[in-house]
């Protein structure tokens, strides 16, 4: 398995280079440039000004020349400055946006998995019972409802309706990440509690959707396994239901969930774009979208290459975990 893992790791290098080339070229070939934003509408701009600005931003060079310039620096750990935030792109991504995203997405994934897996098992075991119908209906509704709409409604409910209805006794902040006037020296616990206060609503909305997705997967996977011959055999030989369920069925049914979770992990770093947007949560999703719109190349490259790296790494980890949970899978 070690050889297999090493081979996969080596294969990642050309793969990541191809991805970086694709991402850079697609971003660079989009119409418009940062210089357009600086010059549009300014009647004093001369052709010389445009040429000067293009040279300063490196846009006087073809995209492939710029790509190799970027790659040469990136290999040395220099990802350049963010044009939109005027700080090093890596600092912006790793220090200012990623921690916020992880604060939102990691608890959402853990909590939703802890809730959805048992519910999925329960729903499968009690197939066609009233609780199963309720859970299936719930997951269909949540899965189908657009996040931007659910988020906006929730925001209005907790920030406008609830305080009015309860005379201000109950309310949650309408988006953002922390009270703007919390003293800078408020201390770790006060700051954390303050952030948690702002986290409740976006986290709940994000969890709802993830619960719905995982629940449906878990239920379907369990139902498929429960109808297999080896489960019938286990039951026929008189094993207790608990053993059949947890030792025989669950261990097999959990393989697709591992795939789901393994592929969800890179997504944790990429942020939840719509949730972040609706709740003004300054995370990676917002950052990537804004950077793509404004052609902030360095932020786009750092963010998307990070996601690409995480995707291939976790793909490998997922494959390796298969071998651990499923004895039939062996890598040679």
């Amino acid at each position, binding site marked *: 398995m070690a050889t297999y893992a090493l081979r996969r790791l080596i294969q990642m290098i050309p793969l990541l280079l191809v991805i970086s080339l694709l991402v850079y070229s697609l971003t660079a070939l*989009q*119409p*418009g440039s940062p210089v*357009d934003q*600086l*010059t549009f*509408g*300014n*009647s*004093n*701009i*001369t*052709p010389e*000004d*445009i040429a*000067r*600005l293009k*040279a*300063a*931003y*490196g846009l*006087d060079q073809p995209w492939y020349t710029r790509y190799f310039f970027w790659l040469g620096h990136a290999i040395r750990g220099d990802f*350049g*400055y*963010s*044009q*939109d*935030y*005027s*700080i090093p792109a890596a600092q*912006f991504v790793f220090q*200012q*946006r990623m921690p*916020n995203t992880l604060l939102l997405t990691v608890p959402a994934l853990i909590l939703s998995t802890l809730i959805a897996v048992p519910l999925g098992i329960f729903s499968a075991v009690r197939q066609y019972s009233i609780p199963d119908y309720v859970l299936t209906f719930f997951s269909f509704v949540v899965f189908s409802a657009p996040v931007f709409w659910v988020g*906006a409604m929730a925001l*209005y409910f907790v*920030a*406008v309706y609830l*305080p009015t209805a309860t005379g201000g006794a109950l309310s949650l*902040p*309408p*988006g*953002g*990440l*922390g*009270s*703007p*006037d*919390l*003293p*800078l020296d*408020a201390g770790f616990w*006060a700051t954390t509690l*303050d952030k948690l*206060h702002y986290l409740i609503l976006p986290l709940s909305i994000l969890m709802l959707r993830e619960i719905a997705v995982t629940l449906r997967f878990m239920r379907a996977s369990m139902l498929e396994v429960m109808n297999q011959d080896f489960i019938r055999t286990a039951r026929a030989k008189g094993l207790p239901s608990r053993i059949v369920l947890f030792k025989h069925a669950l261990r097999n049914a959990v393989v697709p969930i591992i795939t789901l979770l393994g592929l969800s992990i890179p997504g944790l770093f990429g942020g939840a774009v719509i949730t972040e947007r*609706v709740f*003004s949560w*300054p*995370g990676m999703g*917002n950052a990537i979208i804004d950077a793509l719109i404004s052609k902030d190349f360095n932020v786009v490259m750092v963010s998307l290459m990070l996601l690409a790296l995480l995707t291939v790494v976790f793909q490998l980890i997922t494959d390796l975990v298969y071998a651990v949970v499923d004895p039939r899978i062996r890598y040679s």
Partner: protein
Amino acid sequence: MKKTLAITAFLLGTALAGPANNSLVIGTSQEPPNIYDPWNTNNLAITSEINGYMGAALIGLDDNGDPYADIATRVPSLSNGDYKVVKNAAGDVVRNSVTYTIRKEAKWSDGTPIKIADFQFWLKLVNDDRVPVPDRTPWDRAKITTTDADTFTITYDPPYLFADQTSPGFAPQHVMGAAWNAFDAKTKNEKDAKVTNEEWKKFISSFTTSRNLPKVVAGPFKPTAWRSGNSLTMTRNTNYWNKPKGGEDKYVQTVVYRFIPNTNTLKVNILSGQLDALSAVGPTFDQGVDLQRNERGKFKTYFVPGAVWEHIDVNTRGQKAKDLDMDDPRMRQALLLSIDRDALTKALFQGKQAVSNSFVNPISKLYKKDVRDYNANVAQAKALFTQLGWTAGSDGILQKGGKKLSLNFGTTAGNSTRERVQQILQAQWKAVGVQVNIQNYPSSVFFGPDFLSKGADGKWDLAMYAWTGNPIFEEGNLFKGSGVPTAANGYSGQNNSGWVNAEYDRLHKQAQTEFNLTDRIKLFDRMQTIWNTEVPALPLYYRVNVYTKVPGLVNYTFSAYTLYPSWNASSIGWASRGAVEEYKQK
């Protein structure tokens, strides 16, 4: 104890905004890339607005467009001798100059006096090729000479038309000077402009970002905390010279900007009482109307006439334009007479965005009030179409020589207001036999290098977008012949219609060197008459800016002259805390 109470209040969800602690919480949909960059190397509106709280200037303009002295001792004028215009023997102005005296009490926030060296430092850098300012007008022709420790003269040679309406910037040399020298030493022999620009970013970002807040500022507020993606907090700068009436303790002490990119979420924040006011960079017009319906006495919504002019450029270049007579003024007049702009602004904007008939801002001194108003007149429009040889075909669409009058009408995709305007205009044009096909593009394509400026290639027929019509610095540049984007000028002009009129160009050139306002008004009268007769663009309306503020907040106002409520930052306050109202929102 106070801190514990404050923290407890946060955790219970009660915002300490408003008069309770003499603070002001403002919501905006944009976050600036940096703040207080003396050379404005990014030109976003939100940056300008926020800089207004921290910045000072020699002279400024108030809501009425009248100049006032800030850190200069008086407003320069021809009558007081501080503004001088030098003419040659032929009577042509060859240069002009403005003399300023810096107030003795003008200081940086660290208490260091603001000196002439700060202006010289700023001027040196703005003209340095390594500094990526978008343009250098008029500073590339300006020179500073000192009279004494506090008095200096800035001379523009060739002359600058608006020399008395503007003033040079300044930067804290005592704070930035050493870092600049290091940048200078490192990049003076650098040939690669991109490498130099990266070094520039390092230099400027050490004074202007969330990680490195400006070390000193000159205006009424100084930045104290910038939580990236969330908020920016500024507190009162006690070293700012201009104290508002009754003492600065009676006015807002802390200003907090909350960055909420989603304008619907911004709206919820207003409705929930989390914000005291909105920035000038905030909700859309539709959201403003919705907010107005939900005020319930908690806040008031304002629609402030702005400087942004919505119009439809008519492409007069290329073979298709010729085939369809778009290069003939009668066709453009007919198109304008076919549409009912009054009904359109009533239906979509409750009449709050006034119909325009000129490219000049209606509040500008140069605006000509009595140009033709082109009220909808279908009969006249039809007569003009007939005069040009267009007759209705069996399908009702006008045709001539086997060609249908079918036009591609583009705007920025996703702009719901513009898309609704398109729908209405499409229906109105259809009624007179003009077929209009809507073809919208993302902003990056529409404003990109291969669309608007390529009218000669027939990429569009009608294009709806906006220009800023500055009521002070109006030069008539939008429609000058030399502004037609061509390969020769690197597609840098703004005259996308491609309209060229010899008389307009002659008057425009004359107006650029006409320093007498009365005479310049006469020139602009004629220029607007020509433009209004030829209508190279179909004027639609001037946009309004929407914002809200809660009752009791005073001096939080702006106009098309001042553009942002921060112009008067020092005097913003709560009536209940003793702030005196000097300016009312018009």
